[in-house]
């Protein structure tokens, strides 16, 4: 009886101590995953493993009705494995560590917080499990001329690893790493694709394929991210010259006739001036001087008519058109150069994404 009283007293003291430390007592009616994990952590830290293990097992049981994130589940498996490793159940501990690693290959035990024995069991679990992982890309912007984007990938143990970044809309991608890897690895990407060009805007995936060197197993994973270009506004190039914007490079047949008519018209004008417009009362009209002008004009018209009939091309218009085309080409070249300079200043804006679609 005294022994029972001592045990009950100890239980009360223990409960009061928990309350004093701000750790709420387990309450099955108002429990939640986060609260229960917090309690389990506290019990584990005080090495009250007999109470911590059931709590963790309860969280991981199929009957647990509260929602649970992947991180919480991995945390529960890891602490359960760590607890069991402490009490000497190495095989069970390894099983839970493997469950944690299978769900998150980035799971690790900090040697400063866990005992060498726990770490040893965890390492065994890593050797018995094969999984590859890639950390979700963080939102950032970087200048591909001077900076690089870093991808973090992991394997649970030694493996042949292939890491590729590619657009979800097109293949091939750019292979960033291919070789042996064990554990964490940082892989840098300069924003260029296999053709040496800057990755165009769109959705991309980092695909990680690994093959274990210890087990005959393979694993793969992928993370998605969006690429957006941030650059100064580009200038529009000049449009292609339309036919209506160019001079005719050949004269129509009517042009020759038009020249003849103009020449004869000017000739007639000279005679009209000397005849109809002159004062007839001022004596005999001299026809030599207007005839000189009329002959010159008529001759110009006839020569122009004959010449144009045999030379329909308009070399001055051809030259003028060529000059316009050349000016347009030079202008567009200059615009293209300015645009290229602006494109060279492109900043890549990275945003995490989920899946191949928006």
């Amino acid at each position: 009886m005294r022994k029972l009283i001592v045990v009950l007293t100890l239980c009360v003291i223990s409960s009061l101590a928990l309350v004093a430390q701000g750790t709420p007592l387990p309450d099955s009616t108002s429990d939640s995953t986060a609260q229960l994990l917090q309690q389990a952590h506290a019990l584990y830290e005080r090495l009250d493993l007999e109470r911590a293990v059931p709590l963790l097992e309860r969280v991981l049981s199929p009957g647990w009705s509260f929602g649970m994130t992947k991180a919480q589940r991995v945390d529960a498996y890891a602490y359960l494995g760590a607890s069991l490793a402490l009490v000497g159940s190495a095989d069970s501990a390894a099983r839970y560590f493997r469950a944690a690693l299978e769900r998150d290959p980035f799971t690790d035990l900090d040697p400063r917080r866990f005992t060498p024995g726990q770490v040893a069991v965890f390492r065994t679990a890593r050797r018995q499990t094969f999984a590859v992982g890639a950390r979700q890309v963080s939102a950032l912007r970087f200048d591909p001329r001077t900076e690089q984007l870093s991808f973090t990938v992991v394997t649970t143990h030694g493996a042949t690893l292939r890491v590729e970044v590619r657009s979800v809309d097109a293949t091939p991608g750019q292979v960033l790493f291919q070789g042996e890897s064990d554990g964490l690895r940082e892989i840098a990407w300069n924003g260029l694709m296999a053709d040496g060009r800057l990755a165009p805007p769109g959705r991309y995936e980092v695909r990680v394929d690994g093959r274990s060197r210890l087990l005959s197993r393979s694993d793969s994973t992928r993370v998605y991210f969006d690429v957006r270009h941030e650059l100064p506004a580009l200038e529009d190039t000049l449009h292609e010259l339309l036919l209506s914007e160019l001079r005719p490079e050949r004269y129509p047949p009517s042009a020759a006739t038009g020249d003849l008519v103009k020449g004869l018209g000017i000739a007639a004008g000279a005679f009209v001036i000397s005849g109809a417009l002159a004062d007839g009362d001022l004596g005999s009209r001299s026809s030599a001087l207007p005839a000189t002008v009329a002959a010159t004009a008529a001759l110009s018209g006839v020569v122009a008519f004959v010449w144009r009939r045999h030379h329909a091309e308009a070399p001055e218009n051809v030259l003028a058109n060529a000059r316009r085309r050349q000016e347009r080409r030079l202008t567009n070249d200059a615009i293209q150069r300015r645009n290229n300079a602006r494109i060279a200043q492109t900043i890549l804006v990275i945003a995490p994404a989920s899946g191949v679609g928006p």
Partner: protein
Amino acid sequence: MRPAFAHASGPLVLLALAAGAPTAAGQWTVQGTGVLSVMRHRVDAGYGVEPSSGVLAGPEVAASLRDRLTVRLWTRSGSFHADGPGAIDRDVAEAGLQVDVAALRWLTVQAGTTRRTYLTVLARQPWTTVALGAEAHLPFTETGVTGIVRGAILPGVSVNGLGHPDLAIAVASGMEYRRGRASAAVLYSLERYRFAPSATATVERREQLAGLVVSVGWSLKR
């Protein structure tokens, strides 16, 4: 003795020659032109027609702004010799200023004033005229060949001893040829005046100056 302003042709010749000198503003085109006119003068002041003819020559300087606005300054002088009984020889000197404004690609509106003096052994008769007119350009397909038709009314005519004319017109027709900076033109021009009898002139006076005008010019494109 020629009218005093006939000697102004000297400085204008220098100005025409100076067309080769750099212009102050980049948009201006300066052209210097030498003009030779073979003219026939007819006047009937109530005593029968007095015919005379001769050659007038002189320089012209034109400054164009972007081919839109042109300012012309010219002088010419020469002598008319009597061609019939009753006529007398006369010296002629003229100076003029004209402004051309391109209204359309083929049409230029012109306004100007001319001071002309006829000097005979009997008298000196100065004329001052103000003209308003237009010049049509008929370009041929061959670059630089252009037909020209010009017409003007002279609303302001001031002549010593005469009233205002009831008819005063100036017309011309001809060709202009341009190649590079050089240009040449040949026109037939006519000025016709009719003065009705007035308090100072009891008879009608008719006067006409017509002839062939040949010019050769050189422009400086800046």
